[in-house]
């Protein structure tokens, strides 16, 4: 997140993400002579504007332009576009309603279809935060001191769950479960509406260290399973080209700085 303009009641920032994945395989998509691309990339630029009205309502607009492919920006067919506007309406001192409209060319489902959304943020105290609605849900709960549970859901198949415990000052151990997917537009495909989908489940745990609010370091490991890939226009066509991967152990490091 890179703030560009910061005013008392508004801000403009740009969020940039880049993902590089190396699959290191000589496998082919099933029933085809198409090699699974070894290297795929996903880059996104997300300019974001927020404005708070005098009555406390917040308006936000997020644009998106990027590319998700084995050849970034190879053509317009490998590019990703999106836009989202949201309105946060306070309800009481700590709660809020949220309304949004979402458009994306690379959504897991109903791409190119603007989808409305609504949800309620329930935040009675610092130990409990619940966002219930469509298209996503989120819960953060601290049942006892030093323990935190989080759960989030994004349709259709993105689930993240995590439990952490502060074992020592600034040090936390955690266990987590993730069901995630990636989507890419393979350059040179015959049908421009087809995408490569990759799904996996991960269960693991690790250790995190945060000496202050600006630094977060994490090391973790776990097991990835139920991994598969296919290229299709829609999920229910997945059986035509589906390739199942063996489960695999993984190791991961993360670093986050805020300043």
């Amino acid at each position: 997140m890179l703030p560009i303009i910061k005013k008392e009641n508004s801000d403009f920032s740009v969020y940039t993400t880049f993902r590089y994945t190396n699959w290191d395989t000589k496998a082919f998509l099933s029933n085809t002579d198409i090699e699974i691309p070894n290297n795929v990339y996903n880059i996104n630029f997300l300019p974001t504007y927020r404005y708070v009205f005098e009555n406390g309502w917040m308006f936000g607009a997020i644009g998106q332009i990027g590319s998700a492919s084995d050849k970034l920006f190879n053509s317009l067919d490998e590019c990703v576009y999106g836009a989202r506007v949201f309105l946060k309406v306070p309800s009481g001192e700590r709660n809020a309603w949220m309304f949004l409209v979402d458009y994306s060319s690379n959504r897991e489902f109903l791409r190119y279809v603007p989808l409305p959304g609504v949800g309620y943020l329930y935040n009675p105290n610092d130990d409990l935060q619940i966002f219930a609605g469509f298209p996503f849900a989120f819960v953060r709960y601290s049942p006892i001191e030093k323990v935190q549970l989080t759960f989030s859901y994004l349709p259709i198949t993105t689930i993240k769950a995590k439990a952490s415990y502060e074992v020592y000052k600034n040090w936390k151990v955690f266990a987590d479960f993730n069901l995630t997917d990636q989507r890419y537009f393979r350059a040179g495909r015959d049908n421009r509406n087809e995408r490569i989908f990759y799904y996996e489940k991960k269960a693991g745990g690790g250790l995190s260290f945060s000496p202050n609010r600006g630094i977060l370091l994490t090391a973790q490991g776990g097991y990835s399973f139920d991994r598969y890939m296919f290229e299709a226009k829609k999920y229910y066509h997945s059986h035509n080209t589906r390739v199942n991967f063996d489960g695999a152990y993984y190791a991961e490091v993360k670093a986050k700085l805020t300043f």
Partner: protein
Amino acid sequence: MKKTIFIFTILVVMIWNTADVFAENAFNQLLQMPPGKIRTSASYNYRYYGNSDVRNQDTDVGM
């Protein structure tokens, strides 16, 4: 390949697992501190898979 990973490691910037960065970004905007107080953040994430017929490596960088 290693050169690419090295370059982005040097940049040292990144984001958490972004299954759908777009939706997560909107949600973060909802929960984040109010306008005018937003801060710069950068993160880096590297994951290596072993013991498999497909040995993925995922590198996420974001700012």
